[in-house]
């Protein structure tokens, strides 16, 4: 077994809003090995992005980590001082943003924005070597190195996305979080970019957390999958396992709502209902109002998140295999 770069233990994070406490992340646990890629799937508003920002401790003022630990290379970042956390950001854990198009400051040259990150983390020995490093990064992500002296508005959407990926790689982080990095692009560019990112991750032996609402895409490219529902981790395991034997009814629902091109013909099932209100989440299992297999216990008691064998975790009273 290789080294664990990230372990999230029982993480709970709340937002305080005018309308009340929003439990955005609830008792989430998972771990990630070096060089491993992991997908985080769920409907919008299920807490995927909140998990990502908790990992970087880039939370707005009204968000509080209530309990749990995040071990980054063995250090618990939850209790870390802001100044020390700042040094870990980008050098240990970096991020490709959801709206990567806007993640570049319009008034500075793209190359300078990357250089700035390297400078902050003390990775610039001479300007020349730093620029060479940036040029090599540009080549790595398929951009012309000459572009580094241009401004973001001179780039196309796809180019900007690549530049942001180059920026995320610039300080050789252990983990890259990619938060739906391709949603703003057209489908063909999306697919190409996704594959390139995975290739890069393998080549550079980094770990990657890939966030998406599309379980089909995730299952195709990542090794492990975490399925989130209403701030909870519903199921966690290897991609193959989960795709072949989904245990949680929600995972099954998610998979059934996408047509499979290669497999046998299946009827598309859409999940009835909507994700719950996180200010007043349903009692017991949060999925029970939408679950076709729900029984009495589901609405009363919260199922435990446990290993059902083969490193395959699920939080459900009635895992599908059993049915």
């Amino acid at each position, binding site marked *: 077994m290789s080294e664990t770069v990230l372990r999230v233990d029982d993480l709970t994070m709340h937002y305080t809003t005018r309308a009340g406490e929003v439990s955005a992340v609830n008792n989430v646990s998972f771990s990630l090995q070096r060089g491993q890629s992991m997908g985080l799937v769920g409907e919008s508003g299920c807490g995927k992005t909140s998990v990502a920002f908790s990992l*970087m401790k*880039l939370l707005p*003022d009204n968000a509080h980590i209530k309990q749990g630990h995040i071990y980054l290379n063995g250090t618990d970042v939850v209790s870390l001082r802001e100044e020390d956390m*700042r*040094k*870990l*950001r*980008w*050098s240990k854990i*970096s*991020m490709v*943003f959801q*709206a990567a198009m*806007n*993640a*570049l*400051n*319009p*008034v500075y040259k793209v190359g300078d924005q990357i250089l*700035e*990150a390297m400078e*902050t*983390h003390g990775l610039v020995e001479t300007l020349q070597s730093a620029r060479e490093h940036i040029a090599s990064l540009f080549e790595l992500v398929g951009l012309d190195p000459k572009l580094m002296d241009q*401004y973001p*508005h*001179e780039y196309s959407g796809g180019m900007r996305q690549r530049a*942001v990926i180059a*920026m995320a790689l610039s300080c050789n982080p252990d983990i890259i979080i990619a938060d739906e990095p391709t949603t703003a692009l057209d489908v063909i560019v999306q697919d190409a970019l996704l594959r390139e990112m995975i290739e890069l991750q393998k080549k550079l032996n980094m770990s990657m957390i890939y966030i998406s609402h599309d379980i089909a895409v995730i299952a195709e490219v990542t090794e492990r999958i975490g399925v989130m529902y209403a701030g909870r981790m519903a199921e966690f395991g290897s991609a193959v396992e989960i795709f072949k034997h989904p245990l949680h009814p929600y995972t099954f629902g998610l998979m059934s709502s996408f047509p499979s091109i290669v497999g046998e013909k299946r009827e598309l099932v859409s999940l009835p209902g909507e994700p719950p209100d996180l200010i007043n989440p349903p009692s017991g299992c949060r999925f029970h109002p939408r679950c076709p297999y729900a029984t009495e216990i589901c609405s009363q008691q919260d199922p435990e998140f446990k290993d059902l064998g083969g490193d395959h975790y699920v939080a459900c009273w009635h895992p599908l295999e059993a049915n």
Partner: protein
Amino acid sequence: MRRYLLNRLAQNILIFFAFLTLVYVLVDAQPGSYADQYLSDPRLTPAQREILKKNLGLDRPVLERYFLWLRNAFRGDFGISFSNYPRQVLDVIAERAPRTIILFLTATILSYYIGFLTGKILAWKRGGWGEYAATIGGVGLYTVFLPWFALMMVWFWAYTLKVFPIGKFLDPVLWRQSPVDANYVFTRMLITAFLSALILFIVFILARRLNPAQRTPVRLVTLAVVLIGIFAYWSSTGVGRYAADILHHLVLPIFTLATVNFAGTMLLTRNSMLETLREDYIMAAKAKGLPDQIVRDKHASRNALLPVVTSFVLAVAFILDGGVITETTFSWPGMGLTLLSAALVQDIPMVVGALVFTGIMALSAHLIADLLYAFLDPRIRYA
């Protein structure tokens, strides 16, 4: 870039023409202008009236009069001021305008600098009673009735503490035995100020290329050299104390204006910063692990600066408006006071001259703003 600037230049010139036209219409379309008063003198015979009309050019068609006026305006010929008879309007403006410009430019630059710094910090540290206090205090200063506020300043600094003179441009008692007149001294003061500002600006800009360790010493040494140079020059001319007198009279009006204007800039910067802070690139900058100060000063404030620049331009365009109020309270003999007193005695040529002066000020301000925009925002520079 060039196309953008040419475009803006053409637009501004067009606007300036429209402005001149408006000033002309405003004066010419008045019922009962001074010419009518002059002509309605019952002692005039109809023949004499015709001759007078002809001499005044009132018999010509409106359009011709308009073009004549435009031509003269471009040659700087606004006629003779009634209230400063027999001085030319342009002559009066040449004397008074620098006094207004120096007063307002200093105050405006000062207030924008301080306002921007405080607004930035206010937006960054959001929430709490400090914010409410700053906002209410800022709004209070921003909306205060300016003549009254100026009066209070006079009361406090000049009347109670007696630190500064109560008003006026200079102290007549001191100047009685002066070998030179005020304009002579003031012109030299302006030249000194301009030259030293230029030298400092160039050195400060050049110093940016040096190592961080050398930057500050180089700048400080230059500043000291310039200050010593100014001091040496003014002691050698022998009229230093007269210059000091003018400076002494400048402090209170500048302080008053800067205090009032700074609040507006602070409030504007705060809002502009708050909008910028929601941008994704701010989050990205934080994620990169940049220290807060760099995120704030390099990434956020640079983008938040644009609306502030716009407001700065408008402030410069409104110099005459502010001038009327401040200069009246401080008896500062600038353009504002000139305009007000000219309007009160219906000195039309002077009024028109003053309005055109404002137009030119506003025009230059807008052009400078366009240049600044191009400098600050690469999206404009390369469009």
